[in-house]
């Protein structure tokens, strides 16, 4: 599987955010789907995260202005949902499921191995900015436990060997 790395814009670049023509075209597609502009908040935040890599306060301000909401309101929405990144993420975000079936089918061993191999704990990034480790709740793939989601992609039926191979490949590409 060829997981695309995240390319995160720098905090400086994301202080003042304007939407270019491509973004505006996609926004124009989005807005007619809903009777309120506010309903476009989640889809627009996804567009921004795809485009910029993460949601900075500047992005929040731009989304708020575009949809006629207060920045505080939009920031409140961003902070509720775990998948919106509010700090520049690493190239590969390793979202490890820690719930029930995954935990009891080898997930905990994978976590221990990752912490050791990468030298980081949950919520941290490797110094080279390649990997970030996040503990998540049930990913809805329990039959293929243990499961790790790397950026957009599900990696299933893992064991330490398979995981190491995946990380080698991703690290090698970096």
């Amino acid at each position: 599987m060829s997981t695309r790395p995240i390319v995160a814009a720098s905090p400086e670049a994301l202080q003042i955010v304007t939407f270019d023509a491509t973004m505006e075209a996609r926004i124009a597609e989005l807005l007619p789907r809903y009777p309120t502009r506010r309903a476009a908040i989640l889809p627009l935040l996804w567009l921004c995260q795809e485009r910029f890599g993460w949601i900075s306060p500047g992005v929040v301000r731009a989304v708020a202005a575009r949809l006629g909401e207060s920045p505080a309101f939009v920031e409140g929405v961003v902070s509720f949902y775990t998948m919106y990144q509010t700090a520049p993420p690493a190239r590969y975000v390793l979202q490890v499921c820690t719930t029930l079936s995954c935990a009891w089918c080898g997930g905990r061993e994978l976590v221990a191995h990752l912490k050791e191999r990468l030298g980081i704990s949950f919520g941290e990034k490797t110094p080279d900015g390649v990997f970030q480790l996040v503990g998540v709740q049930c990913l809805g793939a329990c039959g293929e436990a243990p499961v790790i989601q790397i950026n957009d992609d599900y990696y299933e039926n893992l064991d330490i060997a398979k995981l190491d191979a995946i990380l080698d490949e991703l690290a090698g590409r970096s």
Partner: protein
Amino acid sequence: MEPVLLRARGVSDSRSIATYLAAGGYEGWKKALGMGPDAVTKEVLDSELRGRGGAGFPTGRKWSFVPKDHPGPRYLVCNADESEPGTFKDREIIEYDPHQVVEGVAIASFAIKANTAYIYIRGEFVRWARILEDAIAEARQRGFVGKNVMGSGFDLDVWVHRGAGAYICGEETALLESIEGKRGFPRLKPPFPAVVGVFGQPTVINNVETLACVPHIIVRGAAWFASIGRPKNTGPKLFCVSGHVNRPGVFELPLGVTFREIIEEHAGGVRGGRQLKAFFPGGSSAPILTAAEVDTMADFDACAAAGTMLGSGGIIVFDDTVDMVDVADNVAHFYAHESCGQCTPCREGSDWCMDILDRIVAGHGRPADPDTLLRICRFSSAGMTICPLGDAFALPISSIVNKYRSEFERRIASATPLPQKKQPVLPWAGPCPGFGI
């Protein structure tokens, strides 16, 4: 039984509309347009189809709650949030047969006269969101979705709306809040969504699997559907089995087979030659069942009679190496993480349970802990909270404490006191800022 919902599993190029049409796809949609909304609703009502998302509410009855004379728009929402631990059936359907979902959405929309449908899919399901978008685009291209569908005069738009990482958005009213662009806070009920739903308009929310049943009901008839299972517990059900089994996966079986049959025959039994100890029958929000209860029938009413819930049909199996206190702790972590934080019992209670269980797991349990857990659970359920997330942690945790009390007591008996942090003499941090007064 011959597969219905998963008949496309294993068929090559099963996702394409050509394959779907060749297998008789969208015949239900055509037939429904000819029947008219009331007849469609009646057919679904007669089938006794009950919601497959967890609540098990009769689907036809939910559709009939939409006010007949409402002058404004109505909405259909397909709940593809699938975040209940142990549940992975909706993505199975979408992976192999997304058009089945689109067709079900179309028929349901028509039945409640909704011209706009949203498929709310959890943010993590990036691949399956794209699969659905592709299927909708194909359907639109062929005229099954869009203006004046097949010349019927009925307009239908279907949009995929991605969530962003919140289990609570699987609760129907929190889902509506999320579509509206807000934090996923469940709403007070009444009013119910069928009367006041998304954007204040009548809305029906149905699970993916529920909607996937609908084309089959229309094509083959309510009587056929009701012939599978038993009265009030009809139709095929996708059971997800995970945990300590040899063959985890999704199994399509009639409602009412026993959990023993599902676990032993279809999922290959407990792995590694070990013994079954306990299992969740319907996701982690259901009271746990012990090995002695494995002959319970897997349908809505039988599970309720056994003091648990069929819920989403997500069966999580634990073998005899598992410590049930650890399971309770893992469950508490899940709900504390997912609690939206609105209402007092769930916000405080889920966190409190997690802290107590963490402490017991770390070897510092206290004799009062099991009863404290039961007290917290008692006052976080049965109407104490805005939504059933309170019950969703209270029921499993209290069932584990009640059924495996000896494991708690054993841990507590060998516990040591929490290491007392020696209170440091803190350096003076300076005078109170005073804030310029």
